[in-house]
């Protein structure tokens, strides 16, 4: 038992933090927001230079090995800069293919995804129908759906690969509140789908991967919201004092830190529990997703309030964090839903 980063993990954390701080700048993120919500150059160097797109993918499949703790470290750093990257969909899709794809499916896609040559997005559906290997129906709110080359679609007991350019598939991107991760609607009209060889294996890794990435991103958002506000509290002067000297202000900062420390425990507990195959992995994942997303929202909301008027402007980055936090709350199960899963574990199903 040692619940702290190993030296290697600490090194990864330092490397990715530096990478995102230097490269995922506000300027570049805003440029991506004005177009399709992805900083392609950033994703290319993330994949090619850092080689971190293969975290959580076995080395024999061309991945970087490592596990959910390392994936969480990366996602936390990306969230800290609200980077406009397809990391969430990529991690879920690549792990689904690694876990449930045939050798051919893995060969077709994994090296392309890990090198950044192709971008995949993964989404669950309860409404698509599959007849003779062809998919029909609609999928709403697919994050980064507009820029994907490949969709990995998981449904109860089934999973498919669908190319974005497949005949019969139309993709409509929407103006989305969080412009760093625009949502798209996918319309399937008899689209040829390549069924994953082992859908159960894919389904086993998709939710855990998605919850860890979103929870860790949320942790990064929360911590950055606090850090930026602390910086402002020291420099902004009113009534002849730094505003951080007012107790009403200090106490809100303290409340942010109290939640963040718990969110940090939650995220790395969940990541570790998954890596170690611990029995409590399920409760850890529900705890992490719900707690971290709510913490991100609380902290980003406080960031706006504690910055006063400037925090409400488009110019300031506060709204980037605020909108990302809100999106994270709704994504992959709202907090209430996750808490209900916990309640079911300890109280039994609701009557």
């Amino acid at each position, binding site marked *: 038992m040692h619940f*702290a980063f190993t030296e290697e993990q600490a090194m990864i954390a330092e490397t990715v933090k530096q990478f995102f701080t230097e490269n995922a700048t506000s300027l570049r993120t805003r440029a991506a927001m004005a177009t399709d919500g992805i900083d392609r150059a950033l994703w290319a160097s993330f994949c090619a230079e850092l080689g971190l797109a293969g975290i959580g993918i076995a080395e024999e499949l061309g991945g970087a090995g490592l596990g959910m703790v390392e994936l969480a470290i990366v996602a936390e750093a990306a969230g800290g800069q609200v980077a406009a990257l397809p990391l969430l969909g990529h991690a879920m899709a690549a792990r689904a293919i690694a876990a449930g794809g045939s050798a051919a499916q893995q060969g077709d896609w994994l090296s392309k995804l890990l090198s950044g040559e192709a971008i995949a997005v993964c989404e669950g559906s309860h409404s698509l129908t599959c007849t003779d290997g062809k998919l029909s129906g609609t999928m709403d709110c697919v994050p980064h759906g507009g820029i994907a080359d490949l969709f990995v679609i998981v449904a109860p007991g089934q999973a498919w690969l669908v190319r974005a350019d497949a005949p019969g598939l139309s993709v409509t991107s929407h103006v989305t509140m969080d412009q760093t991760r625009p949502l798209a609607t996918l319309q399937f009209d008899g689209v040829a789908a390549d069924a994953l060889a082992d859908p159960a294996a894919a389904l086993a890794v998709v939710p855990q991967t998605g919850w860890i990435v979103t929870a860790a991103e949320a942790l990064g958002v929360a911590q950055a919201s606090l850090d930026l506000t602390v910086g402002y509290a020291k420099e902004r002067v009113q009534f002849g004092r730094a505003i951080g000297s007012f107790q009403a202000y200090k106490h809100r900062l*303290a409340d942010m830190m109290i939640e963040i420390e718990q969110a940090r425990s939650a995220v790395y507990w969940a990541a570790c529990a998954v890596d170690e195959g611990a029995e409590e992995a399920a409760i850890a994942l529900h705890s992490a997703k719900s707690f971290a997303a709510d913490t991100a929202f609380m902290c980003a909301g406080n960031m706006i309030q504690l910055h006063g008027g400037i925090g409400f402007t488009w110019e300031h980055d506060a709204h980037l964090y605020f909108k990302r936090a809100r999106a994270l709350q709704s994504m992959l199960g709202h907090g209430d839903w996750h808490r209900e899963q916990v309640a079911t574990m300890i109280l039994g199903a609701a009557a």
Partner: protein
Amino acid sequence: MKLGFSPEEELFRAECADWLQGQMAGEFKDIKGITTLTAKAERRKEWEQQLAAHKWSCIGWPSQWGGRDATLAQQVIFAEEYARAGVPGRVNHIGIELAGPTILTFGTEQQKARFLPGIAAGQTIFCQGFSEPGAGSDLASVRTKGRLEDGEWVVNGQKIWTSLAHISDWIFVVTRTEEGSKGPKGLSFLMMDVKQPGIEIRGIKQINGDAEFNETFFTDARCPADSLIGAVGDGWKIAMGLLAFERGVSTLGQQMAFRNELDAIIAAAKANGQASNPLIRQRIAKAEIGLRLMRYGALRMLSNTDHSKIDGAALTYKIQWATWRRSLGELAMDVLGQAGEVAEGSEYEWGMLPNLFLFSRSDTIYGGTNQIQRNLIAERGLGMPREPRGDL
């Protein structure tokens, strides 16, 4: 990062569990499950001695002083198994967790030899004399005076909220030994025998009807000159060092007690139908998540070996658990409804959950109120300017 325990550690867990459960099923059956601080104090002193006889009383201490040099993982395991077996809290927890480590860190070899064996053996029960009527949140405003006279320290003044004083043998006291000094300067840390004519103890009845806390009056109370820990004027430094020990492994045992309280709420909700109320389900889930996060926060804090940086998990731990537990008390009453307001017997005495509701109002006050905790977090953790001092 690793959460699992090694096979050797799991063996150690089995050894702890066997012994503790054996004791609670056998010779010490009568104290199993006690949750208040002071009930059956005499039997619990015997339990301290039983722990010592089997070298379980202070496993984290060096073996030279009655410990086992236990690793962090072993201490975690013992604390968890201790609470899991339903063993009541240690009546000498102040001796084992605060006085002992303070003497180990700041005491002379002579002082170690004088105090540690008695603490380890469960013979010397300690209490803590910090707060005063005029020095609560503002602990540095201590006014109790100590002066050296004919090779003895002579102490006059009053301490308050001295929990367990009425069953203790010794008290450590922060006294003002420099005439006219103010704030953290001029304070010294003394070890005093409680059972002497110059010390008088009066219980304070609390909102739950119980009296675990006391007022302690010092009227020319005395102790030998070598009862001073550290140097004259080091009192504040030592008191602050001691408060850091308070966030040690024992917090994990405390969490197991919280586990029992939450389990009682879950059982009550299942029994009276509140388990189907969606709002109650959300709150129980939140409480469950909060408790789990407390455990992992404590493990992070205990695993941290880099003391050069501020440890956020440690700094936020007190307010986190205190606020969690106060909410748990409110949840308990919402689950119980009006039934929770009726005592079981004819006395003003409360079962576990109503007592939790009442007692937990103190959790966000003692050991630094939530407001003081927020100041500390903002100032030490986030570098915000310190609160200005008034001159009243």
